[in-house]
């Protein structure tokens, strides 16, 4: 690339490497600090002696353990439902000859530009009797219009001669989908599954809006209570009448670590896929 790197050019490269390295570290170090402090005995500013007490404490707290259970449950079921619904719809919409296809696409696209908003959506959930049910954490965000469109573009790129020849051989539509299209699309499906899973695991606002019973709260809501609400009445937008105990810094850090751990575990897989996903999306805008 550099045939005759000038002094200035080389200086720029060194500064650039150093600068981006520092930016990367600055973005990552807060997590390191949180992890270290969560294993620390006292609530001092700097981590001191190693201990597991904070983790023993939070795992002996029934509400916290329960909320992890709720989050795991909604993430597993929700991701399965979302991925299934999105993939089936995306597959059908990838047929260019399907009557009504462009109308449906237009309908989907419009939802990206104009939404009914908070209150009307709340009433839909309410009228479907999903309030205070874990369904309200999975169904209102079932299909992402954006993922649907990207996945449809992906299915369009599956060689249609394969599909046609299978059909000539008398294969059923369901067989084509299960035996040809889905196996060919496994990487894309895995990527979108991960994206859905991260989204469901991370959501908290739907739970605040729709769920009243504390035993149905996902971990993000509990995390918010322990870290933000339990600290001198900050974040006044919480549910009224919650009694919140005082928690030390170490316990707060441990809760942050545990609720982040699943994301960190899937992160390497995400990283493998997301560049592709984002790329695919950017092609069509």
């Amino acid at each position, binding site marked *: *690339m550099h*045939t005759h790197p000038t002094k200035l050019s080389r200086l*720029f*490269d060194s500064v*650039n*490497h150093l*600068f*981006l*390295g520092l*930016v*990367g570290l600055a*973005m*990552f170090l*807060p*997590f390191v*600090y*949180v992890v270290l402090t969560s294993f620390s005995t006292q*609530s001092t*500013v700097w981590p001191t002696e190693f201990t597991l007490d904070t983790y023993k404490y939070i795992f002996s707290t029934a509400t916290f353990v329960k909320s992890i259970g709720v989050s795991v449950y909604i993430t597993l079921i929700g991701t399965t439902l979302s991925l*299934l619904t999105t993939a*089936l*719809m995306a597959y*059908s919409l990838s*047929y260019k000859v399907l*009557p009504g296809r462009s109308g*449906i696409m237009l309908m*989907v696209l419009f*939802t990206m*530009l104009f*939404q*009914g*908003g*908070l*209150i009307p*959506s*709340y*009433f*839909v959930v309410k009228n479907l009797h999903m309030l205070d049910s874990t369904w309200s954490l999975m*169904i209102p965000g*079932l*299909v992402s219009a954006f993922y649907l469109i990207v996945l449809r573009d992906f299915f369009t790129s599956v060689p249609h001669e394969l599909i046609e020849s299978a059909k000539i051989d008398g294969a*059923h*539509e369901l067989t084509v989908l299960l035996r040809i299209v889905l196996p060919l699309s496994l990487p894309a499906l895995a990527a979108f599954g991960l994206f859905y899973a*991260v989204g469901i695991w*991370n959501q908290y*606002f739907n739970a605040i*809006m729709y769920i009243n019973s504390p035993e149905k709260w996902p971990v993000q809501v509990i995390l918010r209570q322990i*870290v*933000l609400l339990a600290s001198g009445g900050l*974040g006044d*937008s919480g549910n009224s009448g919650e009694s919140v105990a005082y928690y030390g*810094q170490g316990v707060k850090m441990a809760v*942050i670590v545990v*609720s982040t751990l699943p*994301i960190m575990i899937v992160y390497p897989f995400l*990283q493998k896929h997301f560049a592709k996903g*984002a790329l695919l*999306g*950017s092609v069509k*805008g």
Partner: protein
Amino acid sequence: MSTMNVSVTKTNVKTATSRGSRFRGLWKYRWLYAFMLPGLLYFILFRYVPLWGLIMAFKNYQPHLGLMGSEWVGFKHFERFFGMPEFWQLFRNTMLLGLYSTVIYFPITIIMALLLNEIRNEMYKRFVQTLVYVPHFLSWVVIAGISYVLLTTEGGLINEAIKGMTGGAAVEFLTSTEWFRPLIILQLIWKDAGWGTIIFLAALAGVNTQLYEAARMDGASRIRQLWHVTLPSIRSVIVILFILRLGSFLDLGFEQIFLMLNAINREVGEVFDTYVYRVGLQQGQFSYSTAVGLFKSVVGFILVILANKLAKLFGEEGIY
């Protein structure tokens, strides 16, 4: 009489056959429609029924009367909202946060992508990317939580450092009106600036290397290459992302802002969305808050249309 009857039956037969063939066309694809059904149902129920629910904004909705039974009041709620002192406060808060994120956060993603693109060592590039993408996948609760434990006046790392170094008092980052906007923008940069580079990097990877070679042959410096080759090649991506940004100008970081709001910073922090939640779901003024939400949606929609027109005016493709 009898001729008329005949002609009537004839037209009946005609429509029946054309209907029949169209039906056969649909029947041929019955499985595809069946596959689509759950998703279609979802879009109708959760994306289009709420649009119908928007008429609540023009009614005096009372739960016991139902949506249709409630009294029609026209633009009463809108008039009330525009007449309130809160309106200008919300408008200002929302606009300022949208503006800051557009003029600070958005260029930062472009600059970071350009700098990353200059790194030739693939290993090092991957390493930096791995670090800066991480925060994007964490929830806003975690981001807000970490901000909180770092910035609190009760033993937060940053405040302890400030006290230690200056010997002065702790800074009330979390409960002050001055720090609210900088804090929101910094959080946004922390969480999403790295992730925001991805699309630009993808576009930069697609730039024809022959263009650079030709530029170098002509003796162009790296700065000139950046200006004459790199930037023009990602111009349309920048424009498209800018349009999308304008479209979400008003619903900027609802989850984020909601977490950072408290009684002290509310006057600078309350935006349309948080106001709708507070007045609508917490105080039960359903029609009024729906009107506020509708106003926001309409303004957002107009912004997208305008931005798209503007892009086309400058010879770009736009998003539709």
